[in-house]
């Protein structure tokens, strides 16, 4: 690993980015206005892309920014603008059974944290580490080598999704 490419100020950036991501997630699920939720989700996605960069995954970070933040969120914003009614802002925004959802979520979080606390000894001491230099080349080799079949099926999936979305959004088939 090239020593010049190790990240600097790792704890600061980690806490900053994960704080941003979690804050964005909180804003997504609590805002009344759907456009504000979409903006908060964009903040979360960009923060997670930053976390990928810290995890030595620059290609995945690039894909995240291009596809997720630049593509999917534009799609969401379009649809929000198409279906946003004035009256939805004044309506109730949470379910009638929202305490159940909240308790279930907290129980799930407790479960996760319990599992991580119990299994802490299973994680190796030192992360094995990845080289950042030729990350894209290696991903390319694996994608077109080991995972060629999955790659082709993913493209087929995208084709089906395109067809489905076009037909469902058409006014007259």
């Amino acid at each position, binding site marked *: 690993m090239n020593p*010049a*490419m190790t990240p*600097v100020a790792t704890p600061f950036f980690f806490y900053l980015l994960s704080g941003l991501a979690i804050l964005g997630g909180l804003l997504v699920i609590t805002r009344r*206005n759907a*456009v*504000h939720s979409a*903006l908060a989700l*964009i903040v979360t996605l960009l923060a997670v892309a930053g976390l990928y960069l810290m995890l030595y995954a*620059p*290609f995945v*970070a*690039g894909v995240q*920014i*291009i596809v997720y*933040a*630049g*593509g999917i*969120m*534009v799609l969401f*914003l*379009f649809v929000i*603008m198409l279906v946003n009614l004035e009256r939805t802002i004044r309506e109730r925004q949470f379910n009638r059974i929202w305490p159940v959802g909240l308790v279930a979520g907290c129980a799930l979080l407790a479960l996760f944290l319990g599992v991580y606390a119990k299994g802490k000894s299973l994680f190796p001491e030192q992360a094995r580490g990845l080289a*950042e*230099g*030729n*990350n*894209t*080349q290696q991903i*390319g*080799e694996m994608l077109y080598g080991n995972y060629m079949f999955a790659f082709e099926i993913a493209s087929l999936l995208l084709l089906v999704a395109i067809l489905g979305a076009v037909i469902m959004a058409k006014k007259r088939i």
Partner: protein
Amino acid sequence: MLNALMSYLGSNVTPGEANNQLWALIYVLIIFAGVSVAVVAMNWLERKALAHFQVRLGPMRVGPHGLLQPIADAVKLLLKEDIIPAEADKFVFWIAPLIGLLAAFTVYTVVPFGPSQAVSDMNIGILFMLGVSSLAVLGIVMAGWASNSHYPLIGALRSSAQMVSYEVAMGMAVVSAVLMTSLHGTGLYGASSLSDGTGTLSMIGIVQAQQEQQVWFLFKFFPLGLIAFVIFAIAMVAETNRAPFDLPEAESELTAGFHTEYSGLRWSLFMLAEYAAMIAVSSIAVTLWLGGWMRPFPHWLSGSVWDFIFSLFPGLTFLGLAAIAVRGTLRMPKHNYFRVQTIGLGAFALVLGGIGLLLLAIAIGARASSSEAIARAADSMNNIYWFMIKIAVFMYLFIWYRATWPRYRFDQLMKVGWKVMLPISLGVLIVTAIVGVIA
């Protein structure tokens, strides 16, 4: 701290690689100032050039030949009343131009002005540039939405649909250029049989690949490189919402589209973001196809004599501009009222001449003496100059397109984006790959 400042000057890597935050910050500030000056100059050039294309004179009053017009515009915009529409979403209204500006300026982190003159040479440089410039769409969509008014909304939806469509063709053209970096064969049609797939996505690496293959990717596998470049050139005009793809923001169509409700400083932020995005996508085109910072004919006309002749170009360019300014000064009307303008233009000519002489001195000094510092300064000057000249050509082309061509109707625009550009770019990519393997 002075040690930290000076210790970097001897190295030949970017501040990002040298892990030198101070110099990275200095580079960022220089780039920020440079882009702002370039935007101001672009504004003036656009008005003057459009005017001359239309057989009129353009701004002539504010400074000599309108040179201070952009400053007057900026002052006016700053002093204008800040109007926010009544039912507009205040937070989103405020943040939309900032997102466009952020996306336009963050791209400059990886723009290579020289082999070590970039803020940071990321391994995924071109991917980063494409991704961040696609975030500008979000700013436009939010601007149109937050204005709470019909014309901005339609303008924003049209503009974002157009930008998203042409991003696909742009990405394909970029992929076919990146493909050429892995070929390792010299000359116009060369591809070494040892192509072991070690191309690179880093911007500096792409220019160095062109250096190694001794040909600009524009001419590689002629005409494939040329077609890819033309597709990118068209797509980049559509990406930045410039004529002939400026339906979403044209005054005669949608009363200025997505930035209708923005006035004063906020509108100037949009304008700043648009010009900065223009320079950014031009720098992608220059890096990928036009050889980045390399001077013309580095291998045909090689040798230290030709190097010296080409290194005189920066100084001669500025001296030429100074000569034009002197001619303008001499042709000023000899009337009392024009005294200030004449003096101003003369001073401007002197400044340009001074810069030209300084650059000539650096070039001659690098040839004459053997001091390493002057040699490095001359190197940097040459690299930055050739890069900026190529970008200046693109800027002039942008203005030329705007003056000459009528705008596309929106359905024609989308048809061209999906039915013409995408198949052609896919075809170029496939044929480039096949030729690269066979040849």
